[in-house]
């Protein structure tokens, strides 16, 4: 008995001799909170990659469409040609799925738009884009089909969205399939190069972006900024 109690006293004595432990604990609490915030991510955000490229393209009605026209809207882009057939991987079915998702989504007043950029202006005339849109059951109020001069396309799609493509001697385009989402401020938020058979990831990210757009004003903005900081994504 005696021995045990004196050991306990000894322990108390040791603690009192080391106030550092107490202060260490005090430091550990906020540190743990930060780590928890980083690991659990109570607020999830979609990264901000960079400024989305500026462009002036022509749509399937021969009208102009610029990135400024789409400001204030969340825009999902895919890049393809209307003659994309195997082995070309077609992202159109995914866009169709996202169109249905967006149609039934409560966006809280924030418009969500789809844009298909054709890499083949020579063959993809406005008429052909219209036929393509009909084939995909595209809602013209939600989904734009555009193209532009080869130089401009290279600059915007290659330079801006970083999707590189080539055209072989038969006029066939070769490119890796990709989807991109740009927010209402013209900031490129996400590029999908893999997992393109499933719309679930894009749908989750769209929901997160809408949530952020609705909630990140005022003091909550700083919490969202912190969430951006702790997000693990490649920096360029």
């Amino acid at each position, binding site marked *: 008995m005696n021995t045990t109690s004196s050991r306990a006293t000894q322990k108390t004595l040791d603690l009192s001799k080391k106030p550092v432990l107490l202060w260490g604990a005090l430091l550990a609490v906020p540190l743990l909170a930060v780590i928890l915030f980083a690991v659990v991510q109570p607020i999830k955000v979609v990264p901000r990659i960079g400024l989305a490229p500026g462009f002036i393209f022509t749509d399937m009605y021969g009208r102009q469409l610029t990135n400024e026209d789409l400001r204030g809207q969340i825009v999902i882009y895919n890049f393809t040609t209307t003659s994309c057939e195997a082995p070309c991987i077609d992202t159109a079915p995914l866009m169709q799925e996202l169109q249905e998702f967006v149609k039934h989504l409560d966006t809280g007043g924030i418009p969500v738009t789809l844009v298909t950029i054709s890499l083949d202006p020579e063959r993809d005339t406005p008429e052909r884009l219209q036929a393509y849109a009909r084939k995909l059951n595209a809602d013209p109020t939600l989904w734009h089909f555009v193209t532009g001069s080869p130089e401009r396309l290279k600059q915007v799609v290659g330079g801006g969205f970083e999707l590189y493509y080539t055209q072989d001697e038969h006029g066939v385009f070769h490119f890796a399939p990709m989807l991109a989402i740009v927010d209402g401020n013209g900031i490129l938020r996400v590029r999908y190069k893999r997992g393109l058979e499933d719309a679930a990831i894009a749908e989750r990210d769209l929901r997160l972006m809408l949530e952020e757009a609705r909630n990140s004003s005022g003091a909550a903005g700083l919490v969202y*900024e912190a969430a951006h900081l702790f997000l693990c994504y490649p920096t360029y």
Partner: protein
Amino acid sequence: MQTDAQSDLTLQTERKARRQPVWINGALIAAILIAGGWLLWNWLGPHPAPQYGVPVNAGKPIADFRLNSTLGHPVALSDFAGRYLVVYFGYTTCPDICPTTLADLGKAEKLLGKDAQRIQMLFITVDPERDSIERMRDYLAFFGPNFIGLRGSLQETEAIASQFGVVYQKQYHSASATDYLMDHSAAVIVLDPQRRPLVLFPYGVSAEQLAGDLKRVMR
């Protein structure tokens, strides 16, 4: 038992005697922790969100470019390493938006006082066909002494503007080839010293708001 009671008493006395230094030590450690934390936060933490601009905080920097300038020699973005760049696209015959924005930027620079040394205002013309370097120099002098005007070829300008998400096009008002206005994106883009887009200011943010936000986001 007696021994235990005695030792407890001795302990209490010892603790009482030590209480003051413990608290002083504690306060010191707390002060160091707070100061260290504050420094770490400033160094690694998020830039304070701007109040009037749009936070961008992008990871991908703007690709460097070199253009002829109103300084009389070509300049590259990387020449201003260490400074925050405030970039605006416009043209000298712009009737409304450009002069208003440039006047606000000039005023904001004055309001920044000493902090203005940490920024560089850049004006990139979207109308290089009509805007000569001399013309830009005369024009920019109206708005402040530290503006630098940049002028590229038509192709260079389009590629550079696109990087910033900026578009522009001619709007003709008569049959004359030189009688046109430029329809262009009106945002002011702030880059951090690593050329990463930091904040976007939409058109219509006042000089006071620009200066206040620039002060907030610079560290």
